[in-house]
């Protein structure tokens, strides 16, 4: 077993192709998760009781089942009832829904952590509900959420190889297909690890920066 640089350069374009899909799936998945999570959180906190209960159940259900099972369900079972999604879309929906439920809990915790007195003070100073949310509640609720959300973003990024199970040609799947025809795993898998490490490190730096920026707003 030895490391072959020529082989590395030869497979690099294929792997970069896969990396693009991985990043695309993460970005789209994160966007879906952020939106879905917000909807879940709001429904659970402000909707009439029956709806809030049902939402709570759905969130617990999705959180309590493995992502891989959900992906298989979306990709292989939904076509039976006439919903046939392209592989990447199915993957983005799976990631988005799954991580959306985690995000919902983060949103909920963040908002509920703002002391009740803040609501009362807002009301006392004659702010409307909208003003209270935008100027009082959210500015205090969001900064503590950021580290938790960032963790989920990185976790989601690292879970994208699961999409290879539903035939999305992302980084892991490309590496596997390279290994399949060359009978070599060492270079493709090492490169996959390195790509993920680099991307994770970059996101960590970016998210630290975000965190600090928002923390400063709070100090003002």
């Amino acid at each position, binding site marked *: *077993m*030895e490391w072959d640089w020529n082989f590395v350069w030869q497979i690099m374009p294929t792997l970069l192709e896969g990396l693009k899909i991985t990043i695309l799936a993460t970005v789209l998945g994160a966007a879906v998760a952020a939106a879905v999570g917000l909807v879940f959180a709001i429904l659970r906190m402000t909707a009439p009781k029956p709806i809030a209960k049902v939402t709570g159940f759905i969130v617990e259900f999705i959180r309590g089942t493995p992502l891989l099972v959900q992906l298989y369900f979306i990709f*292989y079972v939904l*076509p039976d009832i006439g919903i*046939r999604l392209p*592989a990447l879309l199915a993957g983005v929906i799976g990631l988005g829904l799954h991580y959306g439920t985690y995000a919902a809990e983060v949103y909920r915790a963040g908002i509920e952590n703002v002391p009740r007195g803040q609501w009362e003070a807002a009301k006392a100073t004659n702010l409307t509900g909208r003003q209270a949310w935008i100027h009082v509640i959210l500015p205090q609720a969001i900064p503590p959420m950021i580290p938790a959300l960032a963790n989920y973003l990185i976790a989601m990024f690292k879970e994208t190889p699961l999409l290879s*199970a539903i*035939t999305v*040609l992302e980084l892991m*799947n490309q590496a*596997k*297909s390279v*290994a*399949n*025809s060359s*009978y*070599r*795993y060492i270079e493709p898998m090492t490169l996959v690890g390195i790509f993920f*490490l680099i991307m994770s490190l970059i996101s960590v730096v970016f998210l630290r920066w975000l965190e600090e920026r928002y923390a400063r707003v709070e100090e003002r």
Partner: protein
Amino acid sequence: MSMRTFLTMAAGASALMAVVVATPAFADDGKLEELKAQGFARVAIANEPPFTAVAADGKVSGAAPDVAREVFKRLGVADIVASISEYGAMIPGLQAGRHDVITAGLFMKPERCAAVVYSEPILCDAEAFALKKGNPLKLQSYKDIADNPDAKIGAPGGGTEEKLALEAGVPRDRVIVVPDGQSGLKMLQDGRIDVYSLPVLSINDLVSKASDPNIEVVAPVVGAPVYCDGAAFRKGDEALRDAFDVELAKMKQSGDFAKIIEPYGFSAAAAMSTSREKLCAAQ
């Protein structure tokens, strides 16, 4: 993780690899003795009937493992223990020492012959397509798929069919890597792929089990050669391979070989009419 810890770990890992590489290969005869003492040989299979099959109770059958089990028994190795693997992962797994031999219908092709040492031919089969009833896209060969920009083909990752499709000029994004037979059939029924390609006997087995009137079979695929598999051993295990070949040849002579594989639908005559040299040299 800081860069320093990462580097330390990398250094540790490469040191470990160096040790692994430096371990001398087993002495030639030692391998068979080792298997005898151990009482079983580890084989890689794929769960693609009739080549390889795993029953609901976990019992391994299929033509390839059955032949291997018999040959190993005659060599004094009591049994085989099978692990299911993707086609593409078999040769790397063999090289990494995870299996002693591949008995999975892994067809002999020159690049595979360069990576492993094959026994003499065991199971021969042509390639086939499963597709929608009436063959709406009129697909008869891999070339037809390449020429039709709408046609998508599903094939096992690292399998012969995937390579045949790519070699015929089907672009990568129209060759869908399908994890297993059941998924392939489902994707065909759902219209995610237009063709699912496997060897003739595998497709027939799959389609007959599915009993879906909307699926039909095109076999053999025009222009695709007949391939034969063999038991694939690690480079360095030539002595074991040679011992295997001797017993296999005896079984072919006595007719025991035909008795094992013909109930599965394979032709013993086809395997006996060709040789490893011919198949490994074929392009």
